[in-house]
C-alpha cells in the first residue's frame, strides 16, 4: 500500500481538511530550548539519572539524512521511502536460491504485508514515512508504531530468549544499553515479514541486532546487523538509518481496514492526511 502513489494522492486530496484538532502542538517542558523558545534539536541528548541514553520521543524516518532514499516517484504520500542498503553499498549477499526468489518476487511485483494490513516489522518499519515512538518504562521499552497502531516490546529486565519460540511477526526482543547505544537483539521471527520494502524475505533463523544512537536531541539513528544463514552468504549490516524528532506532537491513530470498506475508512484517511500535514 505504501508504494502506490495514486492511492496516496487520493488520500491526500480527500482529506486535507481534518488536521487541526489533535495533539499536534503540545508544549513539551522536557525539551531544551533555544533563545527564541524553539525546541533546541542540536542540544546534547537526554539521559537517565544513571547516564543511560534516553530515546523517548516521536521519530520520523529521515530520507534526507539516510543513504538510499528511493528515487523520485517511489513515495508514500509526499515523502520518499528509504531503500534498504548494505553498509558499504554492495548488493545484498543473497544465496543463489534466495536471489532467484527475490528476483522472481520483484518480477511479479509482490506486495508487502502492509498491503493487507499486516505490520511493517524490522527493518522495513524504519523505511516508510510513518512515525514511531519510544517509551521507556522500568524493565521494558515499548516501541509504538503509528502505522496500524501496533507496538513492539523490548524487554530490558535481563531475561533470556524463550527456549523454543513460536515464530511471531515482531519476534522476541531483549534490549540493553552499551555505552551510548541502546542495543536490541531479536529472535523468533516468522517468515511473513520483509526486511525491506522490496521482497527481501528471511527464514525463521534470522537473528537481528539493532543499535540505536541519539547523537543529539533531534536525531535518532539505527543500524541493523542481519544474520540469516538460510538466506545470506554472510552476516551483513544495513546503512545507518536516520530519524528526526517530531517535537511537541504525538502519534495519530492509524488503523488499517484493508481499504475495502469505504464507509469505515474515513478515520484512517484523516490520520493519513494529518501525517502528511505534519511532514510539511
Amino acid at each position: 500500500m505504501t508504494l502506490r502513489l495514486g492511492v496516496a494522492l487520493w488520500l491526500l486530496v480527500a482529506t486535507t481538511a481534518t488536521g487541526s484538532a489533535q495533539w499536534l502542538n503540545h508544549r513539551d517542558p522536557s525539551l531544551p530550548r533555544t533563545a527564541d523558545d524553539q525546541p533546541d534539536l542540536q542540544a546534547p541528548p537526554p539521559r537517565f539519572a544513571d547516564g543511560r541514553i534516553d530515546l523517548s520521543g516521536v521519530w520520523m524516518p529521515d530520507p534526507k539524512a539516510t543513504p538510499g532514499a528511493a528515487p523520485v516517484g517511489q513515495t508514500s504520500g509526499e515523502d520518499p521511502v528509504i531503500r534498504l542498503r548494505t553498509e558499504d553499498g554492495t548488493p545484498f549477499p543473497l544465496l543463489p536460491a534466495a536471489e532467484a526468489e527475490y528476483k522472481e518476487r520483484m518480477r511479479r511485483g509482490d506486495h508487502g504485508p502492509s498491503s493487507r494490513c499486516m505490520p511493517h516489522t524490522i527493518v522495513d518499519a524504519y523505511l516508510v514515512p510513518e512515525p514511531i515512538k519510544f517509551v521507556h518504562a522500568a524493565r521494558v521499552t515499548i516501541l509504538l508504531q503509528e502505522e496500524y497502531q501496533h507496538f513492539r516490546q523490548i524487554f530490558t529486565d535481563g531475561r533470556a530468549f524463550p527456549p523454543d519460540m513460536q515464530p511471531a511477526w515482531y519476534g522476541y526482543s531483549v534490549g540493553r544499553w552499551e555505552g551510548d547505544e541502546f542495543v536490541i537483539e531479536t529472535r523468533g521471527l516468522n517468515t511473513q515479514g520483509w526486511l525491506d520494502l522490496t521482497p527481501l524475505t528471511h527464514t525463521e533463523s534470522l537473528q537481528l541486532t539493532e543499535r540505536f544512537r541519539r547523537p543529539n536531541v533531534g536525531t535518532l539513528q539505527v543500524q541493523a546487523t542481519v544474520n540469516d544463514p538460510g538466506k545470506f552468504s554472510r552476516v551483513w549490516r544495513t546503512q545507518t538509518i536516520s530519524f528526526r524528532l517530531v517535537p511537541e506532537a504525538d502519534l495519530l491513530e492509524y488503523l488499517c481496514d484493508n481499504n475495502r470498506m469505504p464507509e469505515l475508512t474515513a478515520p484512517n484517511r484523516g490520520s493519513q492526511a494529518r501525517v502528511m500535514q505534519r511532514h510539511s
Partner: protein
Amino acid sequence: MMKPSNLVTSLFLALGLAFTAHAQWISVPLPGTPRTSDGKPNLSAPAPRASDGHLDLSGIWKSRPEYTNPKGRGLERFMPAGSRVPMTPAAEKFYAEITGNGRYDAADPSERCLPDGVPNHMLPLPIKIVQTPGLILTLFEEFYVFRQIFTDGRKLPVDPQPTWFGYSVAHWEKDTLVVESSGFNEQTYLDGEGLPHSEALRITERYRRPDFGHLVIEFTFTDPKYYQRPWTAIIPFDLMPDTELIEHFCENEKDLGSMIRK
C-alpha cells in the same frame, strides 16, 4: 483470528492458545513481584508504588466475569443488582435491531480485525498496563494494538478527529487514577452485545488497585443521544503474574467476502 463470537470459536482459540503457550514468555518470573514463602506470587500483598509515590498499575490484567447483576446483558451485568442500562428510545431501537436479526456478528468491528474501542477491547482478553511518568500505555493482546493515556497535565482536545480509541487524559485522586476520554468514532459498541454510542460519548474510568493481584475499573458513560443519564459499570480484573502477552495479529483477508456491513 477473530474475536470469539460463539462457543466453537472460543474453544478453538482456547485449545489453539493452550497448544502453543509453552513456547512463549508464558512462564517468566518477573522481578518486582512479591512472593510467598513457597516462591509463588503473593497476590494479596500491598499494591506497588511508582517512584513518584503514586500507585503503580503496571501489569497484565484479565477481566473477571464476576457479575453484580447476573440477570443483565453485556455490561449491564457489572451494574448494581436489578439495574438496567438507561437507554433512550433510539438506543433501545438500535439494540433490538442489532441483536434481534443476527446483524451483530457482521457489524462487530473485531470481526473485521478492527478494535472494539473502550471498554469493549479491554474485555475479555488480556491487557497490559505500562505506567511511566507522564504517560500510561494500555497494550492489548487482541490485535496487538495500543492506547495512550496522558498524565502530563494536558487537556482533552477541543474538537478532536473521532478515533477508535478516543483521546484520554488522566490524573490521580489519592490512590485512584481518573481517566477522562472523548473523541470516539461511532464504529464501536460499548460491549459485546452491541450497546451503541455517539461521537458525543464521554467515558470516565476510575482505576483502583486494592492489592498486588487485583484491579478494579469503574466506567461511567455519558452520551445523551443514547442514554438518559450517566451510568456506571464496575469491572474487576485479575493480575496474570509471571507471564507475558502473546502476539495476536488479525488477518481478515481470507474472510472478507463474508463480512458485509449493512
